[in-house]
């Protein structure tokens, strides 16, 4: 065997080895990431009354379907109707948030103006105060606006998200400045640059923010709790929590069935958004 053959073979086996390791690590993290969902699924799709902490595999399709059916056909506080309301409010909040924060991030990322850093730190400070203390004043404002039990009451207060602003800003910072100069030479208005140049290139940022914001809105509990006193407007998080009170007589597996079902729409939305948004934005010249 020549030394070059040996080198080629060892290079090959190193390639295989590195490929195997890559796959091993990647799949390992898939298992870690998805395990709790899989586990919940196993508990739901097992007969009621089996030891919950020991169900790692589903053992009864029928039992699971029965529980799922029971959750979906609740006559009081139904999760399906709640999903409709929640979807509307989440979509509204996401749309508003993406628009408002990307617009502001456009300014922060690509231009200079007096007070820029102060304003940005001010915006970030909103992330540093827990909802526990800001809840009452926020609630007072919402009441003054007559937003009790309304969709806008649910959606608007969370729209000016500093985190979304931060995400957009950092992504936009990475865009080449020549594009802006080219745009203004071509006579584009300031807003036009935002709309026709920067936004089309921000597909990845929009996807990230939209997905995260949707999931957040879906899971939001404390704000819908205080702003909704009409059970027909309850969001999914409120309906799910109703099943699982502290001294609730609901059994664990049924509670998990409720939470499992409440988690389905965000997953579906994520898959849908991933495809739709990436397609809607031009990504020529970029890796995506």
């Amino acid at each position, binding site marked *: 065997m020549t030394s070059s053959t040996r080198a080629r073979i060892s290079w090959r086996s190193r390639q295989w080895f590195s490929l195997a390791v890559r796959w091993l690590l990647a799949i390992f993290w898939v298992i870690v990431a998805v395990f709790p969902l899989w586990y919940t699924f196993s508990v739901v799709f097992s007969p009621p009354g089996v030891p919950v902490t020991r169900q790692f595999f589903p053992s009864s399709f029928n039992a699971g379907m029965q529980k799922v059916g029971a959750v979906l056909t*609740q006559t009081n506080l139904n999760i399906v109707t709640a999903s409709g309301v929640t979807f509307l409010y989440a979509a509204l909040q996401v749309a*508003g948030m993406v628009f408002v924060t990307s617009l502001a991030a456009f300014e922060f990322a690509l231009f200079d103006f007096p007070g820029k850093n102060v304003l940005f730190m001010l915006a970030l400070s909103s992330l540093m105060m827990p909802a526990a203390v800001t809840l009452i004043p926020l609630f007072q404002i919402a009441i003054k606006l007559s937003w009790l039990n309304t*969709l806008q009451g649910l959606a608007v207060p969370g729209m000016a998200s500093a985190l979304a602003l931060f995400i957009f800003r950092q992504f936009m910072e990475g865009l080449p400045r020549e594009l802006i100069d080219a745009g203004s030479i071509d006579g584009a208005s300031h807003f036009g640059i935002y709309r026709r140049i920067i936004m089309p290139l921000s597909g990845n940022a929009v996807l990230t923010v939209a997905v995260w914001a949707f999931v957040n809105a879906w899971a939001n509990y404390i704000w819908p709790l205080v702003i909704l006193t*009409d*059970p027909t407007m309850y969001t999914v998080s*409120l309906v799910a929590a109703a099943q699982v*009170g502290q001294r609730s007589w609901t059994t664990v597996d049924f509670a998990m069935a409720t939470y499992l079902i409440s988690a389905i729409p965000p997953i579906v939305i994520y898959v849908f958004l991933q495809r739709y948004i990436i397609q809607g934005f031009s990504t020529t010249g970029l890796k995506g």
Partner: protein
Amino acid sequence: MKRHPIYFVLVVLLVVSGMLAGCGTRATPAPQTPAATQPDAKQPDAAEAVTVEFWTFPDWGVGDAGDLFKTFVAEFEAANPDIKVKFVPKADLEQAIIAGAGSGVYPDAFTVAFNQGDTFLKTGIVADVAPYYNAMPADFKKQFNPGWMQALSPDGRVWGLPFTAYAQVLYRNTNVLRDAGIDPAAGIKDWEDWLAQMAQIDAAGYSAIGDLTTDGWFVMGFVGGAGGKNGVANGETTVSADALTQALTFFQQMQPYASDIGNGDQAAVDMFTSDEMAFHIMGPWANPGFQDAQKANPAFEYDYVLIPGATASQFGGTNGGEWIGVTQGPRAEAAFKWAAFLADAAQTRRFAAILGRTVLNDVAMADPEVQKNDLNVLTAKATNYGFADAAYFTFWPLDARVPFKTAAEAVSFDGESPAAAAQAAIAELNQVLAGQ
């Protein structure tokens, strides 16, 4: 390039939400403002329908309980054509009421735990229903459990009507007991007997019970088992150091046989249903889970008894209750009518019979249908013993249970002497009650 799709989506959503917003604001009644602000709009007319907004625990809004309440509302509205009831199951309703009280957003009637009574009175929105209550016929007033009714009527005022109650009971895995050489039918006489049984169970290779030091709610029950009674006088706790010391001594002696898995953990429940653990302390809401476990594994056998106390005539367990209250304002009278309807035996009897909950209505509990449910009967009996989960209608902050937990931890893991730990706990509790 094609039109930006996001603008289209945004416009559609804004239009839709605008439409819904219109629907939303029309469908809900105007926020309940205290009478002072809009007197003329709120005066109930004899011919006009008054809407009583009723907030209650969320799990009463689902399943069988939800159906039962629907029936109640329908029956009440039929009997009182000028009153409509809006049934709102609401989680964390104490917090929601506090958040909304300042802005006038709170219900006309509500159910709340006894241990939150003082907090609620401090909001200033609870109505003193003594005038309405005193006007009720004697038969009505006699049906309520006297002790709990007493707690609701300090110094001539009546804050509401007692509704439901809970108590901890002791669940026993009879297979494990038999395996360890204990005859379940013999019961448990007192703490000495119980410790002996735990030793036997441990010797047979089983876990006796889960870790009870994880929550003051468990520890308090044992203080009750030693004769301690919860209460506050002159801003200090009336719990006797002696009862506390006895309970802590028991904890110290129990420690070798207790598992390191918390009694409140799902893992402990699973050990219990898998014939690995002998005892489990919990309220009656754990029973549906055990019934399911029996269906899944018919070999699993269990029973429930009162939690043993220090002596044969004493019993332990923490207990608590819920009451129906009414807020001040023009709808208070209508709201009281609804409260009285709910608390009446005709309704609470069904609540107890169909849902198996303990109600604080002696007439309802005496009903033969209700008496058939032995867990319910046991729980009702248990509320006469043990330790209340708070000192009712006096300043008892929610973390007033913490000194009990700290003391139990100290004697179980740090080798602290029960007497010293008891003293420390009482001092800590008095500090908490003083508002520090």
